[in-house]
């Protein structure tokens, strides 16, 4: 045996010795545990650490939030808060017509709800379409393809606050966008003061910031499509549009569905970059549900944690529905793959 081989063997022994010792020490209690609880009991035992973390950081806050939503007052500690039952929910739902926020006692909540619905409707469609087009382009045999992929992915790495600030500097009255318009001989636009422009800006900036992530998922899906299908189509003289509809889109559908649901969930939660960009204005044109909850629970001079909790529970219910929808899709795709 060479000197190097001997050294490796010694090093291996040094590493494995304590592991063996530990295994020997644990053998007796683990064997006893398995005899007592069976295989399922052992599985539960190993899951305990994760369950504890999940319980402390997810389940417990969720339960506390539900309890908060049944209390009133401005105090933060539960012990100092008075039980009000469903009063906070009643306040949120006290409307003559849910379609008209002005008829609701909590008009800003319903304004935020309908703004969020409008945002989700537009942003999700736009995000999926732009992500698909981006992935299709980046999948082509471009010159400097890696560079272009990086260009589209870099905004994903930016903090949402940075994204909001950058675009605020671009879109404010004396920002770069208006300078560009002015140089081209057009009248400047008050992007962040006109309702429709501000809404469009909130959607556009959100798409710009996150499209790289979803394009990446779709790109992975595109690269998994067997090349020979395209070669066969080419030999048959199939038109590119037909190739897209008959080959690319059906085979990309699992990725597309996952992207759709992820975009949907994130769109409902929109807050950070839009909060920095528009502050929820003009007026309340870009006041979305998460900002409403933040304002009521944290930013106003007299905080109302109960009302904010009730609103967040309602939003959580919507997200649970969307998550179940996503799980359903994933399961259906998995079972299709097996059959």
């Amino acid at each position: 045996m060479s000197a190097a081989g001997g050294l490796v063997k010694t090093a291996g022994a040094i590493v494995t010795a304590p592991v063996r010792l530990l295994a020997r020490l644990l053998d007796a209690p683990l064997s006893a545990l398995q005899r007592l609880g069976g295989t399922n009991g052992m599985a539960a035992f190993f899951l305990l650490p994760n369950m504890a973390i999940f319980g402390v950081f997810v389940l417990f806050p969720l339960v506390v939030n539900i309890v908060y939503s049944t209390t009133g007052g401005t105090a933060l500690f539960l012990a100092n808060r008075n039980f009000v039952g469903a009063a906070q929910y009643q306040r949120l739902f006290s409307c003559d017509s849910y379609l008209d926020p002005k008829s609701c006692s909590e008009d800003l909540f319903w304004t935020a709800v309908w703004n969020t619905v409008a945002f989700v409707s537009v942003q999700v469609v736009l995000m999926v379409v732009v992500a698909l087009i981006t992935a299709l382009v980046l999948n082509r045999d471009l010159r400097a393809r890696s560079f272009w992929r990086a260009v589209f992915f870099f905004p994903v790495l930016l903090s949402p606050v940075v994204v909001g600030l950058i675009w605020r500097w671009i879109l404010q009255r004396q920002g770069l966008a208006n300078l560009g318009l002015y140089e081209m001989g057009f009248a400047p636009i008050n992007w962040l003061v006109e309702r429709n422009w501000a809404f469009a800006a909130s959607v556009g900036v959100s798409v710009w910031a996150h499209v790289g992530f979803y394009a990446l998922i779709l790109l992975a899906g595109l690269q998994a499509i067997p090349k020979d299908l395209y070669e066969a189509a080419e030999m048959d003289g199939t038109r590119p549009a037909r190739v897209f509809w008959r080959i690319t889109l059906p085979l990309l559908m699992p990725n597309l569905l996952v992207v759709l649901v992820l975009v949907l969930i994130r769109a409902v939660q929109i807050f950070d970059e839009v909060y920095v960009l528009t502050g929820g204005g003009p007026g309340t044109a870009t006041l979305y549900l998460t900002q409403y909850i933040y304002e009521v629970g944290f930013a106003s001079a007299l905080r109302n944690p109960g009302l904010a909790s009730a609103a967040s529970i309602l939003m959580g219910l919507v997200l649970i529905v969307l998550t179940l929808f996503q799980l359903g899709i994933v399961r259906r795709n998995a079972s299709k793959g097996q059959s």
Partner: protein
Amino acid sequence: MKIRTAFAAITAALMASTAAQAGDVRLMWYSDGVEGEVIKDLIDRFNKDNPDIKVILDDVGYKVVQEQLPVELEAGRGPDIARVTNLKTLADHWLDLTPHIADAEYWKTNFGDQFDWMRPDGSDIIPGFMTQLTLTGGFANKTLFEQAGVELPGPDATWDDWVEAAGKVQDSQQLNAAFVVDRSGHRISAPIVSYGGNYIGPDRLPAPIDDGVKTFATKLVDWTEAGRMNKETWVSAAGTTYRPGIDDFINAQVAYYYSGSWQIAALSSKIGTNFDWVATGSPCGTAGCSGLPGGAALVGIKYTKNAEDVGKVMDYLASEEIVREFTERTLFLPAHKGVAAGAIDFKTEDANVKGALDVFVKATGNVIETANALPAWSWATPVYGVLVTRISQVMAGEMSIDDAFVRMDEDIKALVEAAK
């Protein structure tokens, strides 16, 4: 033996660091102008002269003081000392410094007039001191007025006079807007009071929205619709978000800016010699020409574990010599009676600054009683928030001004209900 020595050294080091922590005093500070640098210098000197106490200065953004500090305080935590503007609403969290300071009479004599602004109603604690007094007021771009050939309105000019004059400057100099008021309920409360408004009901709870609020809010909305007030400052935000208009004034995009005395240092350092500016005091309404007093206070926090050290730090910062130096270097109006009574040598070469400070000192004589009562009223900040939210919605075209007044009353009623 070596291991034992190393272990002993580590233990000694740990014990030493624990001892140092026992004397730590965390001071949460935010800055409007240059006062961050000044306080850092003052604290460095204190630390040097008092090796047994270590003051750690946490220089944070104003938003942190406004939004995060209250949550920490509710949880029974926080820094040992903090510089705050939300004085009355959070009054229950301030430490009574009386047993921890060297001479309570000195504090009462020199800072006593403002103690009610920052202590719970009916209490006689000494919670801290005002680092500066402020007064809301206006600033005019003198150079733009001169270039437009428009006379600066005199000391008794009304809000209408100022808007009309600034409007002429706007038209002549092709400005984006004639004037701007910070997006803040505190700022618009001065003109509201000048138009006879009063928020405080006979039971110390918020009174219904009155004619003073209606008059000035309607004017503000009309001026914004007419393109006289800069729309972006008020409209491009929702809720109670604060937006200052100072950048528009500094960039000479407006002829007139309504904010307050605390902006003097920032205006001086950022405008420099680009143009001449003057402070104007507060324009008049039908009930007076009042500004709104206020300021930032340095308060001890009830949850400190180093109350004695906090008292020593506060004694140092509140001493006449240090308050005078702080005042002269930050260009703030002092709250210390002794300092205010003597000559103050403001450290500036800028002639605009000295003139502005004189104007604000003079304007303190115009403050009417309803304005003076607001800093010591615990509902002031919540009411300010309601006004800003609803007036912005009117400016954005989301509701009529009359609907907004109805909503303001409902919002205030809901706040009172929620606080029960």
